[in-house]
């Protein structure tokens, strides 16, 4: 019995109905429509990642509030830390992670979809729960319009129309590892590519070692081009500027790099895409470029402490020998000497790190780490409190 099968049988009340080709079917009594979950034993499987095409959660039926509370308390007793009851209006929900990490929900049968619409006209109009009604106009304006379903494939569009290729420009390709890592960080799943205008779909890893992730976005990276040729991109990563020297703090860089950013800002006044600032001191330069360009603030972003947080998770993961994706820990503040690690909210697989065996002690590295980027000492001599990794 695995932890998941124990949970399915002892807590959710299902039983093993049969096995076939490595799949085990568990079923629950009383189900009318779907009442099965099929499990495939794969101890060595890699961890999946949410995205288009995956299931977000599985919801299980409970008859009413009392039944929900009863199962909820069983889930709680099994250590799965269920949420409080959340009123989803058409049913009430409790969420928790089963032992394997799949998001489960307990949902009540009632009151059902007819609670706020004529049963003959379900789904025809945009329906909002009452607490969102005051914002109806803004919400409706933000949603794409939907027309009547057409029989497949009458309106089927080529895949390159449904997921247009995003073009990202990079300004400043000095230390490629750093910029690729920033593109990785900025796009979540990475977009490490060749600086030579090659489509980089599916290229994994990239130049940022353990901090990078698999490249899966349809992103085209353009770099080493004249600045003006980068103005029709969807996003522009600004990595230009000089690097810090070991004997200066990040703020010492400011004078030189701010001059450069004012120049860029002036040339970006009509830019239509998103600007992602990487050059240090990143938070100040983001503001400098945003002001000089006059672009809306939501289109001028700095990477802030994103990489620091990623490295912190990597370090904690390595120290505790768990997958860094199971580590939730944040570095906040200005990216640089004054940033702060939020140890009090750091969690490993949902468990606060202070309760993890030796967690706090092991997770704080005693020596500087390097992650493809130069180590720079702070002028105060304290170094970065994150992982002492420099930037």
């Amino acid at each position, binding site marked *: 019995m695995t932890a998941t099968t124990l949970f399915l049988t002892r807590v959710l009340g299902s039983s093993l109905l049969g096995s076939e080709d490595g799949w085990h079917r568990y079923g629950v009594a009383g189900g009318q429509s779907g009442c099965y979950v099929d499990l495939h034993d794969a101890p060595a499987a890699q961890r999946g990642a949410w995205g288009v095409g995956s299931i977000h959660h599985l919801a299980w*039926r409970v008859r009413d509030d009392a039944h929900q509370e009863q199962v909820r308390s069983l889930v709680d007793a099994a250590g799965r830390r269920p949420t409080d009851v959340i009123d989803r209006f058409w049913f009430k929900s409790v969420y928790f992670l089963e032992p394997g990490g799949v998001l489960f929900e307990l949902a009540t049968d009632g009151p059902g979809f007819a609670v706020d619409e004529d049963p003959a006209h379900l789904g025809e109009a945009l329906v909002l729960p009452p607490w969102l009604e005051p914002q109806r106009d803004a919400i409706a304006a933000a949603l794409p319009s939907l027309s009547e379903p057409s029989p497949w494939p009458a*309106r089927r569009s080529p895949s390159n129309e449904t*997921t247009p290729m995003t073009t990202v420009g990079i300004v400043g390709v000095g230390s490629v590892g750093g910029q690729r890592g920033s593109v990785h960080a900025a796009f979540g799943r990475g977009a490490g590519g060749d600086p030579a205008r090659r489509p980089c779909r599916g290229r994994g890893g990239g130049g940022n070692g353990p901090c990078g992730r698999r490249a899966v976005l349809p992103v085209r990276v353009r770099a080493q081009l004249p600045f003006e040729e980068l103005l029709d991109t969807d996003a522009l990563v600004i990595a230009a500027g000089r690097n810090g020297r070991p004997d200066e703090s990040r703020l010492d860089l400011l004078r030189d790099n701010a001059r450069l950013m004012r120049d860029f800002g002036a040339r970006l006044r009509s830019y239509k895409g998103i600007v992602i600032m990487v050059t240090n001191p990143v938070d100040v330069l983001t503001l400098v470029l945003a002001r000089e360009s006059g672009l809306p603030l939501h289109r001028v972003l700095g990477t802030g402490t994103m990489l620091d947080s990623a490295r912190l998770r990597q370090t904690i993961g390595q120290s505790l020998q768990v997958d860094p994706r199971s580590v939730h820990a944040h570095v906040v503040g200005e990216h640089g000497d004054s940033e702060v690690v939020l140890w009090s909210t750091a969690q490993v697989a949902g468990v606060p790190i202070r309760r993890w065996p030796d967690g706090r002690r092991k997770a704080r590295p005693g020596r500087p780490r390097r992650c493809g980027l130069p180590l720079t000492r702070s002028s105060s001599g304290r170094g970065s409190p994150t992982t002492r990794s420099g930037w």
Partner: protein
Amino acid sequence: MEGVNGLHHVTAIAGPPQENLDFYAGVLGMRLVKKSVNQDDPGTYHLFYADAVGQPGSDLTFFPWSQLAPSRPGHGLSSEVSLSVPPTAWITGASARKLRHRGFRGRVSVRGAGPPARRSSWIAGGAGRERVRDAAHVRAVGRQPVPVGRQIRGLESARMVDAT
């Protein structure tokens, strides 16, 4: 001890909402029973498809988050759902489309992937004869592009990789 009563709904992450609507209502013949928004992210839709009356246990719902990257199958998430179908129509139709057939203890299944046509995201899966009797309570939908006899009836099962 009383456990749960089967699947209530399955919520998946989809691509563009119109493509999602065209496929689940236009091809599979499910009824869009609720057009709402993600209550935790009200700028995006939450689309609910179910049988004719929206019974619990028949709904497959979607967050159309087309800005996300494609998912990666593995443990820690479920990436396939089986739907209960009227067998004759689907096995015949599936043969014509060269979809894969697969059994589970005597049931005949038809496997295919919904849009976007990337890595398989779910199976339009199957039902043997006994399942059709069980599924008789699930009502078919009128006024859909798909004939009543070919419509998806509801949820059958979900699949998970167990690495615990």
